[in-house]
């Protein structure tokens, strides 16, 4: 398929910034130092629900180096929503900077500052807070009980933040058209992002008028807007500048403690660093725990007739993202079904606050759907792959209740590639089925969007041409480790026909770069990428226009990134550098700046197929993952190395989700058990099965150079594929994670040799 020939994209190249990371030179937030910097630490509630009776600072004030404290009455009292999404009525305001009524473990009660980080922690620990401890509701069921107290009475009496109904067709018609109906309830646990870099910010509001924030941020422009609102500033007086960030996965798609650190900076007239401990990070935000009641009906020929789901998300006590996570889940069904009913509930509890996490609602619903599809295939006596393929939405068709048609779809190629890899593995290691061990494969499909599904993605880019044909590329989107700066530079190089080494990018600094909605919704490639192609087109058009001013008698054209001038019977060809010089230093010249913005009108769906080979030890009731294959249709992969890395990382997070990750609160002490990385276990190198990833040839008509997204997609199908494999090996039906509750987990990997 050589329809699309590229120089700078659809190749695998190392990240631009990776050598500085390998040398230890890359600067992360907590590596930054400002003159006269102080350190802040938070006094947090040890209870999931309580009332503060008194706060006593006497002991804290005695700690050497103590500088000061902020109490709830010292800070603005208006409610806000910390989500880094653009403004929306779904983002209900119910959170305070500091509170005397903690509703969740780790709620912010007060903030102290000292000369060093250790002194600040010691002072925070020395603050004596007296609490009246109240009974928390930790799960959705208890919060929804008739007699449950309202957690946020000014928002909701019954602890339902929002109810969302998305449906088409007729339930009765779906039931009667179905020869088989399968149904079950599924639950998934709260999962923490565990970015290896803990959350951190450095805020300088020393003059009380201009605020500069360096922080672990995915959404600098939204965070600027939020903090300006909270502190009563104008956005132009607030600068959010993103240093190198050690991972996000959604955890930094929100404000964390920048507000209180800024207020402390104002109080002390000094820059303030506020960095979380690992324990604070663990209970700061999670992927929502879910309860999903699902019914799928199909006629005898395997056609789906009914998809009926009740979807409950455990929001914790603050709304943050929850209703948008529910909304995102409502339109992620990649199978045609005439009768579709989605009822989604965002529910307040006192569990850890749910926020954005790679997958954003899709993870939980795909988990239930893909497991139930396998059971349905068994009932119908159909191959699980074929069942999915015959129902799959095709190009030109819409997902149920969605309004944008699918614009490219390589799912069949993904299946065939997975099957080819599967065959190679099984040739080398034939499936075992004996007295002791049984091996089997499980599969799952998934899809995602290429930007926020609400069409609120908006991005912009500026390309400035230098006289040696290098360019400065300015974009607002944040590289949080996923590799967007390299990808964006590649797109610019491709569009301008210059080598990648001629592009210098500056990203995610509200003082220097143009607006971007933010790094979320897997939107960087598609949305920011489209802004870049437009900026490059604009630059090229301006170059042509300026050359026409300079050569008014001549005919000026662009051919394959060269500028051809025909004047007085003579033809001159200028390359970009020659054109740039001519333009900048000619008496009729000018400065060449291309600008582009892109408002997400489309949101092409990338697709993924995941195959998992697992084994089950009958006597031990133990499982081991052997191989995981994931093949995706992401349109044109801009950087094949990055896409492969996203897939492998997404698989690892799916393995952790499936096998053992869960933020746990001890029901008796009501404190978290998951207070460190021994008690909250993420996959280690030795835990990972063999992984195989690939991308199929694909090109989306709306994508920049044909590209769609990959980041979130990568992790969605993994847990259900694992469960489907374990179900086939063990013969046990599974409807909850993590699997360590049910099985002994054996270290993954065959022995070598």
């Amino acid at each position, binding site marked *: 398929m050589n329809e699309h020939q590229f120089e700078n994209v659809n190749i695998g190249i190392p*990240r631009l910034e990776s050598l500085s990371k390998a040398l*230890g*030179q890359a600067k992360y937030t907590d590596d930054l130092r400002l003159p006269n910097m102080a350190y802040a630490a938070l006094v947090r509630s040890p209870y999931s629900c309580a009332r503060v009776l008194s706060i006593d600072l006497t002991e804290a004030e005695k700690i050497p180096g103590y500088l000061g404290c902020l109490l709830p009455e010292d800070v603005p009292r208006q409610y806000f929503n910390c989500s880094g999404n653009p403004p929306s009525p779904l983002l209900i305001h119910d959170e305070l900077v500091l509170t005397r009524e903690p509703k969740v473990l780790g709620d912010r009660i007060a903030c102290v500052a000292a000369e060093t980080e250790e002194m600040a922690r010691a002072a925070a620990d020395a603050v004596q807070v007296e609490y009246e401890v109240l009974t928390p509701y930790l799960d959705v069921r208890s919060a929804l009980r008739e007699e449950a107290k309202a957690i946020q009475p000014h928002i909701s009496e019954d602890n339902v933040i929002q109810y969302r109904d998305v449906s088409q067709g007729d339930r009765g018609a779906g039931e009667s058209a179905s020869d088989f109906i399968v149904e079950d309830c599924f639950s998934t646990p709260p999962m923490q992002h*565990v970015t290896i870099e803990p959350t951190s910010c450095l805020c300088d509001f020393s003059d009380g008028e201009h605020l500069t924030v360096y922080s672990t941020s995915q959404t600098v422009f939204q965070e600027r807007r939020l903090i300006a609102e909270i502190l009563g500033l104008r956005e132009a007086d607030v600068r959010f500048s993103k240093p190198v960030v050690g*991972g996000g996965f959604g955890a930094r798609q929100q404000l964390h403690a920048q507000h209180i650190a800024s207020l402390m900076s104002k109080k002390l007239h000094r820059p303030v660093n506020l960095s979380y401990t690992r324990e604070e990070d663990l209970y700061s935000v999670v992927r929502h725990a879910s309860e999903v009641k699902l019914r799928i009906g199909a006629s005898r020929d395997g056609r789906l007739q009914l998809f009926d789901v009740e979807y409950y998300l455990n929001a914790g006590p603050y709304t943050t993202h929850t209703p948008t996570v529910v909304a995102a889940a409502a339109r992620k069904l990649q199978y045609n079904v005439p009768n579709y009913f989605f009822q989604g509930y965002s529910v307040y509890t006192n569990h850890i606050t749910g926020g954005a996490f790679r997958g954003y609602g899709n993870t939980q619903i795909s988990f239930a759907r893909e497991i139930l599809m396998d059971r349905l295939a068994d009932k119908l006596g159909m191959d699980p792959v074929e069942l999915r393929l015959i129902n799959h939405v095709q190009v030109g068709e819409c997902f149920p209740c969605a309004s944008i048609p699918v614009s490219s779809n390589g799912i069949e190629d993904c299946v065939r590639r997975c099957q080819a890899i599967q065959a190679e593995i099984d040739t080398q290691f034939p499936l075992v089925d004996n007295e002791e061990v049984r091996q089997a494969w499980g599969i799952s499909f998934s899809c995602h969007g290429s930007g926020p599904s609400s069409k609120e993605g908006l991005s912009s880019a500026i390309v400035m041409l230098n006289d040696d044909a290098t360019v400065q590329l300015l974009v607002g989107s944040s590289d*949080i480790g996923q590799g967007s700066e390299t990808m964006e530079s590649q797109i610019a190089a491709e569009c301008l026909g210059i080598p990648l080494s001629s592009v210098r990018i500056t990203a995610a600094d509200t003082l220097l770069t143009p607006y971007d909605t933010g790094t979320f919704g897997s939107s960087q490639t598609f949305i920011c990428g489209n802004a870049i192609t437009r900026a490059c087109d604009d630059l090229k058009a301006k170059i042509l226009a300026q050359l026409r001013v300079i050569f008014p008698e001549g005919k000026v054209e662009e051919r394959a990134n060269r500028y051809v001038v025909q004047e007085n019977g003579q033809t001159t060809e200028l390359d970009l550098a020659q054109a740039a010089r001519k333009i900048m230093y000619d008496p009729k010249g000018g400065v060449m700046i291309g600008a582009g913005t892109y408002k997400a009108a489309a949101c092409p769906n990338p697709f993924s197929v995941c195959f998992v080979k697992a084994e089950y030890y009958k006597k031990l009731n133990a499982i081991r993952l052997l191989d995981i294959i994931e093949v995706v249709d992401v349109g044109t992969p801009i950087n094949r190395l990055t896409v492969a890395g996203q897939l*492998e990382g997404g698989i*690892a997070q799916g393995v952790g989700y499936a096998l053992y990750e869960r933020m746990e609160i001890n029901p008796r002490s009501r404190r978290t058990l998951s207070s460190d*990385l021994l008690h909250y276990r993420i996959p280690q190198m030795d835990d990972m099965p063999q992984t195989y990833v690939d991308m199929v040839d694909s090109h989306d008509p709306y994508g920049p150079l044909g590209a769609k997204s990959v980041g979130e997609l990568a992790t969605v199908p993994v847990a259900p594929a694992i469960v489907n494999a374990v179900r086939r090996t063990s013969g046990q039906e599974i409807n909850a994670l993590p699997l360590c509750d049910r099985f002994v987990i054996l270290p993954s990997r065959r022995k070598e040799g």
Partner: protein
Amino acid sequence: MKNEKNNEITLFLNGSEQRFCVETDETLLHVLRKRAGLTGAKKGCDLGECGACTVILDGRAVNSCCVFAVQADGKHVETIEGIGTAEHPHPLQQAFVNAGAIQCGFCTPGMIMAAKALLDRNPRPSREEIRQALSGNLCRCTGYERIEQAVMMAVEIISGYAER
């Protein structure tokens, strides 16, 4: 309990002898980051559970957040800053770049130092030995596949030197 102040220690830090005044309960990681200005070793947990702070102490990979600075007195400490430069990166540093083993990069310095300690001791490790040696180093971004490949690539490069 009062910290005794002003313990003077000497570190042979990346080959150069340096003195520091430290507190009794101060960690080696703290000395590196806050006193020596070497922020390459990262603080991912401060509890010995993530490996982001890995440095090499007298030839062995250690979690520098779990070593008191006074315990390192008189010893050789190698950090990520000491093993290569932009012009002459260590083969592991180059291999991590080329293999695409670096995403957010926060785990990278610790990974590379743990791998270096392994290769210094055992220049031809098996894949299993690599996985074991690096299993104390957590990475949330990469799924480890390319980190393992990067170490294998560095093994090839280093053994190429040795044969010359």
